[in-house]
């Protein structure tokens, strides 16, 4: 077990250090989601009343697209100098590597969300009518749902031709229930019309199911010949 945590923390610290020095993924994600926000503002230009109903969808679509940018880099980075092959021949537990990558992506996407949310509030004149604290579990569970599947499918798509385009094609259909939960839950909190409890439970279920499935299958994917 100790080797699991050692590999996990070593990989995670390495990824964070790389990101801290280059800021490649974070900059790309930030600018990308900023563009999405601006384009949405131009194309909808809603009133405050309307915006409460649609902004849940806009926020999560922007984050979903931006997350793909980071997820695409997560394994592609390991292809250089055959790092991924080294992982495969090493006795390090595959799941530690997977968890490190997922946690790393979770942190990057969370930072992005923390930076972008104020922008959404400013552009759309948002004023939350429901219990605002529920947005925190929604965001955390929703981000984990995107990231855990995204990391898994990124490991898959890195093995295919034209891998950049492959990731969204695999990730989006599977993510539909999670995205639906996030959007409907966020809209419920923003408008205060109904409870978001159901969606939080749904996202929790989704996270548990797919984290388990990813951990069970990641070793097979990594070692597939």
């Amino acid at each position, binding site marked *: 077990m100790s080797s699991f945590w050692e590999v996990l923390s070593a990989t995670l610290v390495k990824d964070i250090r790389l990101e801290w020095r280059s800021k490649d993924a974070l900059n790309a994600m930030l600018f990308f989601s900023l563009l999405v926000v601006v384009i949405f503002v131009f194309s909808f230009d809603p009133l405050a009343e309307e915006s409460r109903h649609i902004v849940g969808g806009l926020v999560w679509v922007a984050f979903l697209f931006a997350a793909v940018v980071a997820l695409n880099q997560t394994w592609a980075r390991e292809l250089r100098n055959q790092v991924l092959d080294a992982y495969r021949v090493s006795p390090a537990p595959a799941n530690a590597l997977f968890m490190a990558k997922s946690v790393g992506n979770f942190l990057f996407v969370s930072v992005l969300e923390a930076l972008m949310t104020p922008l959404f509030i400013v552009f759309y004149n948002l004023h939350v009518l429901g219990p605002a604290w529920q947005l925190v579990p929604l965001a955390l569970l929703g981000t984990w749902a995107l990231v855990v*599947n995204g990391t*898994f499918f990124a490991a*898959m798509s890195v*093995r*295919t*031709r*034209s891998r950049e385009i*492959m990731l969204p*094609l*695999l990730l*989006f*259909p*599977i993510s*539909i*229930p*999670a995205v*639906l*939960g996030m959007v*409907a839950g966020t809209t419920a909190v923003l408008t205060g019309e109904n409870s978001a409890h*159901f969606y939080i439970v*749904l996202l929790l*279920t*989704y996270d548990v*199911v*797919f984290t388990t*499935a990813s951990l069970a*299958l990641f070793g*097979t*994917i990594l070692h*597939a*010949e």
Partner: protein
Amino acid sequence: MKRLYPILSIVTVALLGYALYQALVIAPTDALQGDVYRIIYYHVPSAWTAFLLFFINFVASVRYLAGSKASTEMAVKWIAIFIGVVGFIAPFLPPVRAKIPAGMEPSAVATTIVLIPVFYFLVGKWFPGDKLDVLALTSAEVGVVFCTIVLVTGPLWARPVWGIWWAPGDIRLTSTLVMWLIYVSYLVLRRFSNSAQTQMLAAALAVFGALDVPLVYLSIWFFRTQHPQPVIGGGGQMDPRMLHVLLFSWMAFLLFGFLVCWSRFRLELLKREVEQAHAMESLVGAEASSNTSLPLSRSAR
């Protein structure tokens, strides 16, 4: 087996023709909807066939993944047996029995659940090794075709009856559409992946897709459904003459689906044999291959 194919084709064409005749002429006209409802005889059998094929894809993929390691195979085997035993006993226990919808017999539910592990073991026995992967690919491809028929005939019927082509947020419509998307992405992955690892990656994706379907269903639980209740076990009443035509139609569709799967299965096997033969040829070298014929197997000649 080869002689069976043309016979089965003729039987299928005859059955499909007779099913069409029954659907258009013999089946009584619906009191509320008129003749529009007759599309049900194509819509519902296609849906059942598609779901069955997706289920086969799931079982074959699990079996393929399980076969990669002896310990996994053992674990999955015991899980399948566990599901069978629990599924056989549970529907008869009073607390579970109360939750089974009216119109469904507990014995029918128990039999259906027991069939899952039985099916799992039979698939493993009949389709050893790489044939499992070919089965998964075939069932996904044909399933997507049938699912497309469902998604096209549905709106054609909905427009005159509901007044809209598509009801966004409807539980049945949305879950079928998402299922279709998932299996299309499965086929896209198979198309884009490098040959060696495709089978393992695709099997993993199929398992993820199958896990996703109940969650899709759960996520749209809140929305009311406009879709008519299920024909069997939904508590609704259907004219026995209509039900008879529907079941006959399903039989014809099942046979048709089986036939298409069979040809696709053989085609894929042949394709892989040819690919292997080409690989062998390039390994052996041009000199050796000019003297000897390709090491094709009996079925490819």
